[in-house]
């Protein structure tokens, strides 16, 4: 059974019909990516899953449990954690404090310390800078911190929104390598990316979104070979 199921979801912004009956599944241990143009509904899909937006119709299930009526903070507690677009670290807090804040749903202080150590093994750069203000980190380090902060909540499914946005090309490579590594360690990831080329390289499966609907879904490899995807999203004639 899929760990996360999104079934026929309709989400609106006021009168604007943003998601028109979108369905997708994420299996345990997978990287699934959503690709599509600006305004296709990628971020809306993530926000609907994490409860920040409410679907007017449809169901979202985590291991069979319905999430659509649960408030966002409880969705986090159940293990669906989103890394928001644009990193959004707490600039005025230190790296360490950011991570502690990520463990808000975790009440056991021993496990919080263990979590921080785990994040520091994953991102040694953050350990070097643990007392530094997050706002003074470079963009790449901030993205690592944002991911580390989300990992502190011990997610069952990690929702990543445009992790490569605004980063230098060298750092984009390293961020995708990190995502791959997280997945190798067992994390289940739903990844939204504009950088379709990179996303499809590491994703097991992908969905192509257009104006709020899934127009295509396949394995990452097949999508990279797909004529339409190559033309529209990879820029290959």
């Amino acid at each position: 059974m899929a760990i996360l199921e999104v079934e026929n979801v309709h989400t609106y912004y006021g009168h604007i019909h943003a998601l028109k009956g979108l369905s997708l599944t994420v299996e345990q241990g997978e990287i699934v990516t959503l690709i599509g143009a600006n305004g296709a509904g990628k971020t809306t899909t993530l926000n609907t899953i994490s409860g920040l937006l409410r679907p007017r119709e449809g169901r979202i299930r985590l291991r069979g449990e319905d999430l659509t009526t649960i408030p966002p903070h409880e969705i986090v507690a159940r293990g669906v954690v989103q890394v928001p677009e644009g990193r959004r670290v707490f600039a005025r807090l230190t790296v360490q404090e950011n991570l502690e804040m990520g463990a808000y749903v975790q009440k056991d202080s021993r496990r919080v310390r263990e979590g921080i150590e785990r994040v520091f093994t994953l991102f040694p750069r953050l350990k070097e800078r643990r007392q530094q203000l997050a706002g003074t980190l470079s963009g790449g380090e901030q993205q690592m911190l944002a991911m580390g902060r989300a990992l502190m909540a011990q997610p069952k499914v990690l929702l990543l929104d445009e992790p490569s946005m605004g980063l230098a090309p060298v750092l984009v490579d390293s961020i995708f390598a990190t995502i791959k590594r997280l997945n190798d360690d067992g994390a289940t990831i739903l990844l939204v990316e504009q950088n379709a080329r990179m996303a499809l390289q590491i994703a097991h499966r992908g969905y192509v979104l257009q104006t709020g609907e899934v127009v295509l879904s396949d394995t990452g490899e097949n999508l990279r070979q797909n004529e339409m995807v190559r033309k529209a999203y990879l820029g290959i004639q």
Partner: protein
Amino acid sequence: MNELRRLPVWHSVRIGLIGGVIMLYICLVGMVEVFGRSDIIERVISLGQVLLLLTGLGAGYLAARRAGEPTNALTVLISGVVAGGLTGGLLTGLVVIGSVVNLRAVFINASPALYNALTLGAGPNGAWIPLVGGAALGLVAALFCLLPRRVRQSIVNGLVGVLLAGLFSGLLRVILAARPGWSAELGRFLFASEGLTLAGALLFFILAGGLALLWSQSQATVRERITRLPEAQRKTLRWAMLGLAVILILIFPQISGAFIAQVIVLVGIFALMGLGLNITLGMAGLFDLGFVAFFAISAYTVGLLTSTGEHGIAQWSWWAAAPVGVLLAMIAGAFFGLPVLGIRGDYLAIATLGFGEIVRLLVGSDFLRPWLGGSFGILAIPKPWIGNLELAGPQQIYYLAVFGAVLVAFVAVRLRDSRLGRAWMAIREDEDVAEALGINLVQTKLLAYMLGGAFAGLGGAIFAALVGSIFPHSMNLLVSVNVVALLIVGGMGSIPGVIVGAFALIGLPELFREFDEYRYLLYGIALIAMMLAKPEGLWPSAAIRRELHTDETDETETNPGSSSTVPAS
């Protein structure tokens, strides 16, 4: 113009002109006259004259110090004289123009009396006096600049001592005169009927200056002595200091007299409101410009429940009524919080501004007059009793206010360091991310409004006990603005900052009641100066301090060797 700017004298001219404009302003808004009425040293110098002297000295000092860095003594002196002279020169200009044209049509204070004051009584013929006087002040300031640092410090400290003693001479005299014998004798020796006596001024100068000199010489050795003490003894020392402070706080109102005790009670009440707003605004980042609403709700509740007058409904004791008032303020926090949960930032400030006004208008309305007394308010609120002891006046209510403030400050510290405190901080820094991290926004925000309201409610309850009657006009917008301002001045989010801010913004203005017409002018100037010089507040919280001084700490915190391997992004 650019050629001119390169001359060393350019700075002196600029500073002199700025000083002159400040002087003109001081003269033309009538401060010289009003402040001239209060003497610092009897029949020698008045506060108005001190203001003028300080402006001249300040201009001279700034110009001289600026010139002093790479150059010689002569340049320093010339810079001082030029700046001082220009500052005084503008006043000369004022006197000359004033003697020809009648300026009073525009500037009501440009009177012959002002000209006489500026020319030491010589009138228009003495128009040169401010110019020469200014130059002389500039010279003095420049000479002062050339003195060794230690001497300069003790002179400044001595003068500040005299100025403070002179400013508070009225209060100090009353305190000393209250006890007959040596205390009253000392009072007569130090203080004249207005200001200090000459002997008193000299004594204060020597005392303040000498003590500062002694301290600056022995400070290092004392510090070292303390750090060399064994841990146990240092602990005893700390406890002894704490004990001393507690005893001082306890006996303070008996020494200070009723007026100062009343000022401290007001400071305590505003500190309570500040601690409340520090939770909503300082910790959770929720702007609230209607904070007076909680104060008013609690004050009115206590008033209604305890009053023996016509609007009293229960004649409870203050101790029974105050918790009810606090509870209602708390409920009001939730009630006002609910509709504005989704509003952020500036919009929230405007919405909450509305709440404050609604409460004020409601309690003052004719519609609720049969119950709340309308604009006549609620009278005959009895004082609280502790056993057989009535907390009759400010000297007794002082203990209530101090105890309340200390208690609430303690609770606030515990809250700040709690899980809830961290959730507030997350909401303040980024509401969306806070939600994504699993923080229950509705519950956390409502708790911030409720606890903030409860703290302000305690302030309101004590206020009702202090004044014994409450009127809608004491619940105006200015109270809310004051609370926000004291938070900003003290340092947003900082608990000691709230106390410091309350003393600075509520205590000081109360002590200078005699200059009431200039109260808000000085208040405004102080706020602007504060934001320019120390935007983080007088006692900032750790996070803000770090943010504003990262450039100073960065070097020590990052490892410079490893940073070269990071590609910038």
